[in-house]
């Protein structure tokens, strides 16, 4: 493929990205097929995160097997806890040896962009065929004008609630704004069926909902120029809101880590939390009739919109990166292309029970979103989410701030009354400035 065609593709995807909601189905057929020829004797090592739902890993492996059968390229897939993938990938990048392909999370790839193989041709092809890429995918996939990572999608993030408890609290349907949400939480608390949101150093859950809260009121860590902007009236409003919300939670949320809200929801201790599809999945596939009753009674809803007026959810984003040191760059590209094609990607989404929400508009049509109405709210996670480090750029500073729980600590300090709103905000500002300097 020549340079000109590549640029052409780029323009096409930018235009497609601008015209949101245009009829996309027709475009699939028009797209020119692309494939990379794997190097002779190629073998690939893939490092991925350990499943959150069993079907995800099973289907990924099944797709991989299909790839091996088709191309003869042997692929070994190792799975590690998602938080352990990050340091391993970073070390691999640093020493120039390790897995060829890594399924990484959030802004990992933006910490070492120059160690990553250029995936522009592949991503533009995928974008043209199944696109457009959502804005969050562009933010996570591109750096300095080139694609450094293939966006895989995001772990869905929705309100998980018990329908019967919500009705008992006097709500016919789930509130769509933060004001109604607060009222619901208060009513749930009054009925003894409270909400619970993690406020401990929970990498996934606490970061997820605390960022949503901050952004919903127009607060943000940095402005477009990466200048720290956390100390603002908008942030203050978000924290005041958190202060009113916190007393409606079940006790102990300050100590909650990632698994706590799942456990508490499944035991019936809480009736409302923010989570991916994993709670529903665990309840639905359980052999325990009490758990299945919870699955029948629970439902999902998109995170309410705050005064800022647009969705502000935050979700764990997944990307695939290929390291430059790989001996088989084309085999790696071909593998990724294969996994993103409809036959494989749709089956993967289905098997993972919608855990991974697509970064491409085309896959909105995947039946997985509609065959169980309880999956539907997850459908537009990627479309509606804001990238980490919003409104600035992704990089070491955004990753550092998130890993240091600056936003989570700020919300926890203000919400619990440990500090005043202003103190919490100033402390967060001071901490953030250490990263953005």
């Amino acid at each position, binding site marked *: 493929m020549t340079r000109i065609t590549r640029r052409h593709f780029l323009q096409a995807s930018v235009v497609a990205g601008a015209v949101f909601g245009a009829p996309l189905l027709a475009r699939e057929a028009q797209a020119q097929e692309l494939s990379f020829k794997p190097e002779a004797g190629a073998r690939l090592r893939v490092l991925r995160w350990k499943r959150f739902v069993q079907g995800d890993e099973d289907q990924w492996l099944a797709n991989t097997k299909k790839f091996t059968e088709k191309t003869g390229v042997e692929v070994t897939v190792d799975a590690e806890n998602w938080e352990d993938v990050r340091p391993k990938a970073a070390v691999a990048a640093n020493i120039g040896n390790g897995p060829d392909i890594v399924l990484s999370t959030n802004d990992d790839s933006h910490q070492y962009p120059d160690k990553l193989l250029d995936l522009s041709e592949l991503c533009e092809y995928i974008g043209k065929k199944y696109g457009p890429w959502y804005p969050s995918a562009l933010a996570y996939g591109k750096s300095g004008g080139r694609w450094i990572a293939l966006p895989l999608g995001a772990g869905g993030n929705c309100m998980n609630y018990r329908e019967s408890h919500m009705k008992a609290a006097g709500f016919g349907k789930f509130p769509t704004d933060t004001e109604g949400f607060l009222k619901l939480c208060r009513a749930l608390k009054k009925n003894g069926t409270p909400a619970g949101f993690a406020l401990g150093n929970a990498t996934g859950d606490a970061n997820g909902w605390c960022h949503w809260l901050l952004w919903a009121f127009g607060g943000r860590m940095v402005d477009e120029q990466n200048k720290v902007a956390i100390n603002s009236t908008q942030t203050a409003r978000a924290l005041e809101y958190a202060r009113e919300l916190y007393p409606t939670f079940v006790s102990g949320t300050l*100590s909650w880590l990632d698994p706590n809200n799942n456990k508490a929801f499944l035991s019936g201790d809480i009736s409302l939390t923010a989570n991916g599809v994993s709670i529903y999945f665990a309840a639905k596939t359980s052999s325990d009739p009490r758990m299945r009753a919870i699955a029948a009674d629970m439902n999902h809803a998109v995170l309410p919109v705050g005064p800022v007026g647009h969705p502000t959810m935050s979700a764990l984003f997944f990307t695939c990166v290929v390291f430059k040191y790989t001996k088989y760059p084309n085999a790696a590209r071909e593998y990724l292309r294969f996994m993103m094609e409809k036959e494989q990607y749709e089956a993967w989404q289905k098997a993972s029970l919608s855990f991974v929400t697509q970064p491409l508009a085309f896959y909105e049509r995947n039946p997985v979103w509609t065959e169980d109405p309880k999956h539907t709210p997850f459908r537009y996670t990627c479309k509606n989410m804001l990238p980490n480090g919003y409104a600035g750029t992704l990089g070491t500073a955004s990753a550092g701030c998130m*890993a240091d729980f600056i936003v989570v600590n700020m919300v926890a300090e203000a919400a619990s009354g440990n500090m005043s709103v202003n103190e919490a905000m100033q402390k967060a500002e001071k901490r953030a400035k250490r990263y953005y300097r």
Partner: protein
Amino acid sequence: MISASRFFDNRNVLGALFMLPAAALLLLFLTYPLGLGVWLGFTDAKIGRGGEWIGIENYEFLVTDSVFRLSVFNTFLYTLVESVVKFVLGLWLAVLLNKHIPFKSFVRAVVLLPFIVPTVLSAIAFWWIYDAQFSIVSWVLVKMGVMDHYINFLGEPNLARMSAIIANIWRGVPFVAICLLAGLQTIPPSMYEAASIDGASPFQLFRYITLPMLSPIIAVVMTFSVLFTFTDFQLIWVLTRGGPINATHLMATLSFQRAIPGGALGEGAAIATAMIPFLLAAILFSYFGLQRRRWQQGGKDK
């Protein structure tokens, strides 16, 4: 040939030669990583790219960082409280175990259990014990009618500190107890007999025979205990990840959080390096203080 064999017959040469493998191992696996860590602390290295030398900038930053200062405070609080309690409980346990009790070897084996179980496993057990919703302790108390709500073990800063300290003590006491027990068994019974004939009370036996005879081993055991406690990581990482609101962050956990998930290798290394002076001080104290002859012989400093 003659000169070569003479060369190898030289005691000094031979000694150096025999030490070479050990020295190489130490240099490769201890000195080099330590040196690298210290060096990284003076750079702005990030994961995935090497760093530039920035002098003491990391340390200057850390001094102004409230989370780091809190972690230093926590680390000291932990080490102090835990070491003292571990020593007292461990010594008490050792003295008890040294008596003639039924099923002696079985009891001794059981006492060691907390130390044998991998820390991560016992930490997960404690995580359940302290859980905000499923704590067995809270459950029992509520069922018994002692309380009407669950205890917020890990959700309230001071309570969380205490809970973590208790879990660490539970794990650390057996090590101290078993080592001191070994020490107790080296004290010749004839000394006790002689003292008893002289009319010494049990307390005097303990104060003037047991304690001085035990002090060399106490010095070693407590040095290790302090080092383990000061550098504890797993327990906190499983229980709280440093939360709530960083109230249980130790220097070791903060170092990891900044260096690996956070990617700031240089800063994490600086935090780790900042632990070294304290550790050195603990070692020096035990070697030059606790091992004094005069103390061991029951005397006092002049």
